């Protein structure tokens, strides 16, 4: 593969000679096109490097806040009968500690690493949806600030990070504290689901030429599996939060046993998210360990295939464990045994993975750098946490240890060992890439040993405190129960741990002025992100190199024997003065298209601000502002998708004369893959609602059987409507593909009508069902509203597609929007049909 065109020639190419739409910045050079906006326009940047750093910095700030709250908890428990915090404040402090750590620190940090590293490691210039990443970040920031602001209103949530009902219902938690949690966290979760779609599409569809699935850096496998897990695990919590907020705000009785609801439904939905969440946090961290280990051992990861099998298996098995958090809720013993067996079973792939790490270590003599120390700390702590996990999987032991400090010790060994230690190692490892300077090795070793010693002192003691019977979440305890000294030691350990973190912060601040400038590939790594001397230019790769190895910097001398700028590869030319990268086949990694990437824009910020306004106004009961906020968001998102299409224009890639289409109409392309990912999320949301309905039908039969029946005739009509929507989605694509744009616009118009009518039919079918009379009826309405929202999206989308065709914004052959809408129509049609069948079953 050769690069035949020089930069100088390219800068003189007249874009007008190349055909196709022009939306670039012809006055700017390649470097200027990729430059980060300056001044206040910095906030319009959508580059993955900027957004990734924002996630990391914001996530770390939340980590410090949650850590401070943890110190308050430990200070309160340092001696018996302490009055440092009153019970109510203590409840708020431990609730916010858990909430911030789980939702506002751990997940966003892994997203930050993912957003920052994926394009660099797979050989792309940016993520495939930079605006979506920026939008997600702002939603996360607003959501986090909303949750945190509850302290200002003296309304901090105090029901635990799991918000169990009935405690968190209006009857037992009046005021806004639970609403702050439900609305703020749901807003922040938007970032997680958008990141999931972004990560899936970017890893599968934007890899460098030649980077097949088996040549991907191992971290990409971990992130890919994690992204799919987020897509399936977060929807149950989102649905649970919406149902609970509906109960608090509208009085719908989803969790009210007096009206056929069940508090256990909340626990099921929460832990369907909550347990995979542990693996969602752990897997990317393990992926980072698997990336760092080979670097410091100087050998490739042992058993790449075993590790892939382990991570895929863990991704699935982790969904079968949720009820082990509910062993003491009175579930049938047979169910407990099923979940106990599954919980034990997950140790198998985890063990396979740990053995891969140990075998890698055994292949050579590791360099004991600071990142490596944190990796070793991870192995030690996480294995201990995993062992206590196997103990807790045993039902009789779980009955004894439930809600005791033993569980607190276990979860911190798993989460701090499984995430915080690798994260600190990763920060030391990739900091040169982030800032261009090295953190101090000497201070770093102090950081590690303080954290390692402090952590083990704090949390190992808690095993013993728990075995001596100390329950979790108690604000104080009487002396003489055998807990005094253990709590004192735990608190001292927590302070030592905090001193390690504080030292890291000092080193971080110090390194901007005094840190050594990072040399080229400072750790001698084999992965692609170290191609340039830090800091890598904003475009990541001047030309995107061909990849023939999992460790290209070790195995491909042509990448390291010349300045990175001169490395040969794809897309050195920039004739359209646009941000572009290579689009690849999801499996083989062969180039299939050229991806056009957006330039800096305010639309993500405006849209996210609209969404935040909508959520915040709901919290404050200013409903007209809610409408205004969501209307702003809709306008912002519509404006960002309104872009003249270059789809189908072909360009030379610089890969031996290979010409590829820009944004090709291809099912393997990033847009179609992302729509499939989005539909996976939609189906997970839908399945969560169906699960809720089935659960209530099964456990509260006397209420479910008394619910008024949906109107069969309207239900059958809605069922047919679902089919019509799917058919017209397909027909719009077919007509558009034939180049008959006017006819396609007409079909789009019919689709608008079909979707609107089907939504109305769904409402008519449900009309006799009173959602306030029973939880089962309310769940039926929730299903109806859910599919109707999808139908409304289809109607809006089809309307825009029709208008674009009518005003001439679309050329013949540019059928990408139709291809994507077709996928949504099929998925929504299926959901409508399933919903209608469920209604018919109830009606019969």
């Amino acid at each position, binding site marked *: 593969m050769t690069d035949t065109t020089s930069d100088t020639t390219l800068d003189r190419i007249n874009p007008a000679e190349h055909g196709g739409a022009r939306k670039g910045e012809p006055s700017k050079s390649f470097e200027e096109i990729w430059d980060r906006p300056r001044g206040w326009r910095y906030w319009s940047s959508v580059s993955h490097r900027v957004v990734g750093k924002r996630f990391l910095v914001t996530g770390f700030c939340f980590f410090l806040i949650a850590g401070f709250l943890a110190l308050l908890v430990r200070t309160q428990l340092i001696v018996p009968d302490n009055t440092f915090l009153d019970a109510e404040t203590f409840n708020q402090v431990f609730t916010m500690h858990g909430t911030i750590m789980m939702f506002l620190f751990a997940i966003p940090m892994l997203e930050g690493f993912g957003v920052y590293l994926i394009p660099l490691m797979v050989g792309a210039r940016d993520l495939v949806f930079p605006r979506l990443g920026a939008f997600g970040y702002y939603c996360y920031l607003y959501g986090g600030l909303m949750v945190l602001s509850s302290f200002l209103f003296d309304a901090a949530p105090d029901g635990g990070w799991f918000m169990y009902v009935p405690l968190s219902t209006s009857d037992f938690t009046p005021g806004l504290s639970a609403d702050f949690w439900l609305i703020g966290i749901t807003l922040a979760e938007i970032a997680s689901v958008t990141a999931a779609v972004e990560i899936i599409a970017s890893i599968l569809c934007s890899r460098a030429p030649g980077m*097949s*699935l*088996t*040549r991907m850096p191992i971290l990409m496998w971990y992130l890919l599996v994690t992204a799919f897990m987020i897509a399936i695990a977060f929807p149950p919590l989102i649905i649970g939060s919406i149902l609970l907020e509906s109960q608090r705000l509208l009085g719908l009785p989803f969790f009210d046993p007096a009206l056929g609801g069940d508090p256990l439904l909340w626990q099921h939905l929460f832990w369907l998210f909550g347990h995979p969440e542990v693996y969602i946090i752990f897997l990317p961290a393990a992926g980072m360990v698997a990336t760092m280990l080979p670097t410091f051992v100087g050998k490739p990861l042992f058993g*790449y*295939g*075993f590790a*892939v*099998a*382990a991570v*895929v*298996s863990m*991704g*699935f*098995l982790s*969904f*079968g464990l949720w009820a082990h958090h509910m062993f003491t809720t009175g579930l*049938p*013993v*047979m*169910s*407990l*045994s*099923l979940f*106990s*067996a*599954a919980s*034990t*079973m997950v140790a*198998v*792939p985890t063990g*396979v993975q740990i053995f891969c790490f140990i075998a890698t270590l055994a292949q050579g003599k590791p360099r004991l750098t600071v990142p490596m120390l944190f990796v070793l700390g991870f192995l030690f702590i996480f294995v201990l946490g995993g062992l206590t996990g196997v103990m807790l999987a045993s039902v009789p032991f779980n009955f004894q240890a439930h809600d005791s400090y033993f569980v607190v010790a276990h979860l911190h060994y798993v989460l701090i060992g499984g995430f915080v230690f690798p994260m600190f190692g990763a920060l030391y490892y990739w900091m040169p890439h982030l800032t261009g300077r090295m953190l101090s090795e000497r201070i770093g070793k102090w950081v590690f040993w303080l954290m390692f010693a402090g952590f083990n002192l704090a949390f190992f003691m808690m095993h013993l405190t728990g075995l001596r019977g100390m329950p979790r979440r108690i604000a104080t305890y009487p002396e003489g129960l055998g807990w005094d000294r253990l709590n004192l030691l735990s608190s001292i350990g927590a302070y030592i741990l905090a001193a390690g973190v504080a030292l890291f912060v000092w080193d971080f601040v110090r390194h901007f002025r005094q840190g050594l400038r990072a040399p080229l590939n400072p750790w001698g790594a084999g992965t692609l992100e170290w191609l340039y001397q830090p800091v890598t230019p904003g475009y990541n790769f001047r030309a995107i190199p061909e990849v023939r190895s999992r460790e290209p910097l070790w195995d491909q001398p042509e990448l390291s024997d010349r300045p990175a700028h001169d490395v040969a590869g794809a897309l050195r030319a920039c004739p359209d003065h646009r941000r572009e990268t290579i689009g690849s086949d999801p*499996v*083989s990694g062969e180039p299939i298209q050229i991806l056009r990437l957006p330039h800096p824009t305010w639309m993500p910020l405006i849209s996210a601000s609209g969404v935040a306004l909508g959520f915040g106004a709901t919290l404050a009961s200013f409903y007209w502002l809610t409408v205004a906020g969501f209307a702003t968001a809709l306008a912002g998102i519509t404006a960002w998708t309104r872009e003249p299409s270059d789809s189908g224009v072909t360009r030379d890639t610089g890969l031996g004369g290979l010409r590829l289409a820009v944004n090709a109409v291809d099912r393997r392309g990033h847009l179609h893959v992302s729509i499939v990912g989005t539909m996976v999320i939609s189906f997970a949301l839908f399945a969560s609602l169906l699960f809720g309905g089935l659960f209530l*039908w*099964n*456990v*509260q*039969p006397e209420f479910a059987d008394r619910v008024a029946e949906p109107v069969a005739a309207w239900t059958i009509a809605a069922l047919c409507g679902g089919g019509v929507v799917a058919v017209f989605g397909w027909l719009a694509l077919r007509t558009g593909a034939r180049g008959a744009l006017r006819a396609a616009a007409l079909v789009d118009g019919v689709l608008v009508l079909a979707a609107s009518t089907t939504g109305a039919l769904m409402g008519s079918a449900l009309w006799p069902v009173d959602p306030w009379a029973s939880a089962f009826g309310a769940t039926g309405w929730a299903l109806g509203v859910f599919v109707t929202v999808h139908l409304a999206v289809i109607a809006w989308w089809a309307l825009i597609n029709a208008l674009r065709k009518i005003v001439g914004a679309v050329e013949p052959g540019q059928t990408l929007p139709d291809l994507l809408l077709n996928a949504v129509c099929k998925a929504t049609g299926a959901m409508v049909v399933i919903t209608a069948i469920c209604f018919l079953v109830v009606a019969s």
Partner: protein
Amino acid sequence: MIRMALHVARPVILWAIHFTAIYALISAACAPRALLEPDVARATAALVTLVTGVLMLVWLVIAGRVGGRLNPDEPSRTLAQAAWWTNVIMLIAIVANLWPIAVMGSCTG
């Protein structure tokens, strides 16, 4: 390589179906609606597990043979190795799924 990627995916998907089926059978037998007798649930679970297990054994053999035929340097070999291990792990996992319903006499143990 697409085929090998599917070979990795299919045992985990089959496990997910199997787990859902076993969970549904236990729920049908042990919840207040009592849709099924525990014995019926047990027999159905055994049948489902038998079919699933045989299918997974076949896939295990196929993955082993495909992996054995591939050149050690061939990229697909890594996926074949992953497919074989995924089959092994999931085969154990479906036995673990069946275990409780097979050994317990009733919903309450």
